[in-house]
């Protein structure tokens, strides 16, 4: 499998008013053409930041980067702004939890989608309109001629999200980064949007990196998943493996804490404590203070990411060596 996107040891420091936040402390992630992996974890663990780093959306003057983000062989971290601008929207696109972040409230839907074709493909106005209408059909909001004339605020959250997807996919990108795209939506609408993303992936033959905190969504739509904690990827596995054979105690605890249909026990397993604030580089496993299996090894150095099996890696010395027995 050759990677389309490959992130190696990505570190991002953010200069904030309260000091330097070591927000990403070594992210490793790879994604091949046509894949739909998930990027999961609790809030503040760095998933959205990783996405922004790929899209180069972080303010250069207030952030520091090291490591590497390669897209189809080209390093993005130090690529020219001109190159990135062309890449964005054309080959890599992003959608967000709140569609209004990227929709222009003062422009009709038709003009907003059409504009993409005008800018990226230099087509005529009429051609842009025609393609915009096709795109609206593709994302499932007919009748296109009526929708084209509407403004974002006239649409429900679910329809706004579809418009945002239409805009993001207008140029048939190779990679779509979807950051919690259904978190603000009701479940029945969420199901529709997830279904749409699955369809578009096939129709447009695109990869989707799906950021979600919801392991139900991972189970339903993702081929595999990387779990983040405190600015690192702590485990990557095929979806089935993360549910059946997670190695990292944090992955296990997250999955165990989900209330399930037909769940029997009265109490849900929880994780004691809270994630660390990242005001320093953590020299050890960041999860150790909350982990029931933590031992000296975990606290003394950052755990290496090792292979569990073919498509499964985890960063936990205890579980990898089965020092904790067959837990």
């Amino acid at each position, binding site marked *: 499998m050759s990677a389309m996107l490959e992130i190696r040891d990505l570190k991002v420091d953010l200069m904030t008013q309260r000091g330097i936040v070591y927000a990403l402390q070594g992210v490793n992630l790879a994604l091949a053409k046509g894949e739909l992996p998930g990027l999961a974890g609790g809030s503040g663990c760095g998933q959205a930041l990783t996405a922004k780093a790929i899209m180069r959306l972080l303010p250069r003057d207030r952030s520091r980067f090291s490591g590497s983000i390669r897209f189809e062989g080209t390093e993005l971290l130090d690529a020219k702004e001109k190159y990135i601008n062309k890449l964005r929207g054309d080959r890599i696109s992003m959608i967000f939890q709140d569609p209004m972040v990227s929709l222009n409230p003062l422009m009709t839907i038709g003009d907003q989608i059409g504009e993409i074709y005008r800018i990226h493909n230099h087509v005529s106005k009429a051609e842009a309109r025609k393609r915009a209408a096709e795109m609206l059909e593709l994302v499932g909001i007919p009748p296109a001629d009526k929708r084209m004339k509407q403004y974002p605020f006239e649409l429900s959250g679910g329809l706004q999200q579809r418009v945002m997807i239409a805009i993001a996919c207008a140029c048939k990108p190779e990679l779509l980064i979807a950051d919690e795209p259904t978190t603000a939506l009701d479940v029945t609408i969420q199901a529709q949007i997830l279904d749409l993303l699955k369809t578009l992936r096939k129709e447009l033959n695109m990869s989707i990196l799906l950021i979600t905190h919801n392991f139900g969504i991972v189970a339903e739509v993702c081929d595999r998943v990387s779990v983040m904690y405190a600015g690192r990827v702590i485990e990557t596995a095929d979806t089935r493996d993360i549910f059946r054979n997670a190695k990292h105690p944090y992955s296990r605890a*997250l999955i165990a*804490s*989900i209330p399930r249909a037909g769940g029997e026990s*009265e*109490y849900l397993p929880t994780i004691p404590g809270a994630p660390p604030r990242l005001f320093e580089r953590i020299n050890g496993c960041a999860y150790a203070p909350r982990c029931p299996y933590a031992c000296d090894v975990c606290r003394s150095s950052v755990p290496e990411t090792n292979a569990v099996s073919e498509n499964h890696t985890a960063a936990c010395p205890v579980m990898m060596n089965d020092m904790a027995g067959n837990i």
Partner: protein
Amino acid sequence: MQEYLLTAEHLTKHYRVGGNKRNPKLLHALDDVSIAVRPGEIYGIVGESGCGKSTLGRCLLRLTDLTDGKIVFDGKDISKLDRRGLKPLRRDMQLIFQNPYSSFDPKYRLGVSLREVGRAAHMSDDEINEKLNTLMDTIALPRDMLTRSPSELSGGQLQRLAIARALLPGPKFIVADEPVSALDVSVQAQILNLLVDLRKQLNMTMLFISHEMTVVEHLCDRVAVMYLGQIVENAPTKTLFANLLHPYTRALMSAIPKADPDDHSERILLSGEIPSAIDIPKGCRFAGRCSHATERCLNEVPTMKEVEPDHFVSCFLY
């Protein structure tokens, strides 16, 4: 002991959103909703956004006037009480909100916000302090958290304090409006566990509002499913989940992404969206999205029917 702590019959709440006095444009937030809550019960209300859950909660607490209907709380008809008449009730009925961050005034230390609720309920300072000490143990937070300001605490910690604040005056009835919806799953689990504990320790009665079927199934004794201002199905939790009857309930359950890679059960994908609460469809309100809809569903309004013992559903299929 009385069978029900609170009963609501034919509750209706319309908001005027336009038009004029003679010909007002009405938003039907709640239409003819009836529920009965037993003492010690956690009664779940579940449905998607805009279906009227919060409106129901606010009506039951009489934080708003009713358009129609009757509420009997603790043996007393409270439907028509005015502000003054309601005052003595405030101590007995409390509300917990969804967003823990906006539940507390950022200007004040948390202890100040909590004590204020006690004073409003005419508790003495000694009484308040004593109660706060026990409550802080119950919610498993150190007492010195009360000297902090809201911005210093996490969402989970604030939600614990919001629960403590609601419990402080020793209410008979609590409405918890999506209290775990804004929290991460692991934190959500902590709060749900706390509520399970509280039910055991305090035998509290609660209306628990949520948009998540799995959460109400986990916590509640009884569940009512709402759609577009009405209850469409209502039963004890076990009965309901063993036998989902209303097509909407089934779709709602089916739409939840299952955290199980081996669950390949057929999904029911609803088309379209919830209709506007202003132009209420005639007939069954769900008919436009229901795969079982017939001519009759489009024209007649279904009514609640007891399909099996204590399991009520409003649908022509039954």
